[in-house]
């Protein structure tokens, strides 16, 4: 029994056999997909968030609708609709490479989530900040760009890393678009090897690769979260200590002066 389990999941031979392909393109392609979708998702998400907190309904309602749609659909559905639906229209540019449309689909999905993350961050900023900017004569756009949004982003960094982890995992879905050998990302590499060897160990191998990417990030989130929470307090404590020390030095100086005076 144990032998069976070990053989199905942890067959070192098939694990080793898939490793060159995993390292040659699986890992790289997954990271390319996830990073590109995150970068585009952040840019689109910022636009959505700023539209979402705008005073104008003409900006708010479209942003809201976009978010509802792309957050509400299963990722696989969006990827297939975009990846296959737009493929005939874009062959002249992409020559059948599914990556651009795959990245587009992943970006549209992630931007809906990232937009919500940014919006909550922006709305968590004290309204007094915007008020102070306006009172100084700054325009609404420059107040948002220079004061409100930068603070909001800082506050939601942990949530953004979580979103990146979600995109890393969702990137596996582009395999539905049909990939050439060198276009395969982690999951597809593992799946192909599993089918040809009739053994699940290659999938375990790529699973470990996903964890190598995502688990350190999870800890990075916890660490940044902790730092963001306690950062301010720590620096205040340092300052108070400094003041106390200064007061103490002053006291002893006075004492010395008194004694030497006598």
């Amino acid at each position, binding site marked *: 029994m144990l032998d069976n389990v070990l053989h199905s999941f942890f067959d070192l031979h098939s694990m080793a056999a898939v490793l060159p392909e995993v390292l040659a393109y699986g890992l790289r392609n997954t990271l390319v997909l996830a990073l590109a979708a995150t970068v585009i998702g952040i840019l689109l998400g910022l636009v959505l968030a700023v539209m979402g907190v705008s005073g104008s309904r003409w900006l708010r309602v479209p942003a809201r609708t976009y978010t509802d749609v792309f957050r509400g659909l299963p990722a696989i559905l969006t990827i297939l609709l975009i990846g296959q639906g737009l493929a005939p229209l874009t062959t002249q540019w992409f020559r059948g490479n599914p990556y651009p449309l795959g990245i587009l689909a992943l970006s549209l999905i992630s931007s809906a989530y990232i937009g919500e993350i940014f919006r909550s961050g922006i709305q968590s900023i004290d309204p007094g900040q915007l008020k102070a900017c306006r009172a100084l004569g700054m*325009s609404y756009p420059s107040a948002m760009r*220079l004061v409100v949004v930068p603070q909001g982003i800082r506050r939601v960094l942990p949530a953004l890393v979580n979103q990146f982890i979600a995109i890393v995992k969702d990137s596996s879905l582009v395999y539905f678009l049909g990939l050439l050998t060198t276009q395969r990302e982690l999951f597809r590499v593992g799946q192909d090897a599993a089918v040809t060897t009739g053994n699940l160990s290659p999938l375990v191998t790529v699973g470990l690769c996903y964890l190598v990417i995502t688990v350190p990030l999870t800890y990075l989130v916890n660490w940044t979260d902790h730092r963001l929470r306690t950062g301010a307090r720590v*620096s205040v404590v340092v300052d108070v200590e400094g003041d106390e020390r200064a007061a103490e030095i002053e006291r002893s100086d006075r004492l010395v002066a008194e004694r030497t005076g006598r």
Partner: protein
Amino acid sequence: MNGEPTTIRQDTATPSLPDDLGAHACSLEVRELTKSFGEHQVLRGVSLSVGAGRTTCIIGPSGSGKSTLLHCVNRLEEPSGGDVLLAGRSMLTESADVLRRRVGTVFQHFNLFPHKTVLGNIVLPLRTVRRMSAAQAEALAMERLSEVGLAAKAGHRPANLSGGQQQRVAIARALAMEPEVMLFDEATSALDPELVKGVLGLMQGLAEHGMTMLVVTHEMGFARQVADEVVFMDRGLVVEHASPSEIFEDPQTRRLKGFLSQVL
């Protein structure tokens, strides 16, 4: 004397304000200003005027519309009716940014930018609004900071300053814009008692240097000592408007008498 926290020492450092500080000061006039939030009428026709270089303090119970009045003067709230005039010219026909560039505002909760240094807080609006070069803006910001006695804190984050120091940075930030009128919205209400004096001293310095100031305050001592005129507001109306000595020693209305008996 022994073991006095150093923050107090810094907070009472006497500011050294420049002589030409009030050079741009102009008169402020508010005419029949009204403001409603839905059904609720907060201001019911407020009129007052502050001569160039003069200081008027607004006192009154909470909810009397004092803060709303200030917000309407620089149009953080759009007035429902009436007019605001600077140097005799109506400002409600212009864009709000034009008005706000001429009017400096200091808030109860300072509203410094926490992600910027103390210097950065002053530089940012100088760069974006007055379109100064980085070098110009920094030089001017340092000048204003040293005038409020905080040049040594230029590189600190606001969170590392005491409340009194933060408020003085906020005042320096407003002054750097070279306002013609300054509004103070309960500028010392959020401060610990021992920090109030430093900020009030700075405000008094501004008044003595000829800044036009409209000051909403709960500090009756400040109103009595520094103000040229005192306005008592209640329920969205100016109830009494007179010199400090008349307001505090010879109140005419029952409402002002009642208010003074509670706060003095």
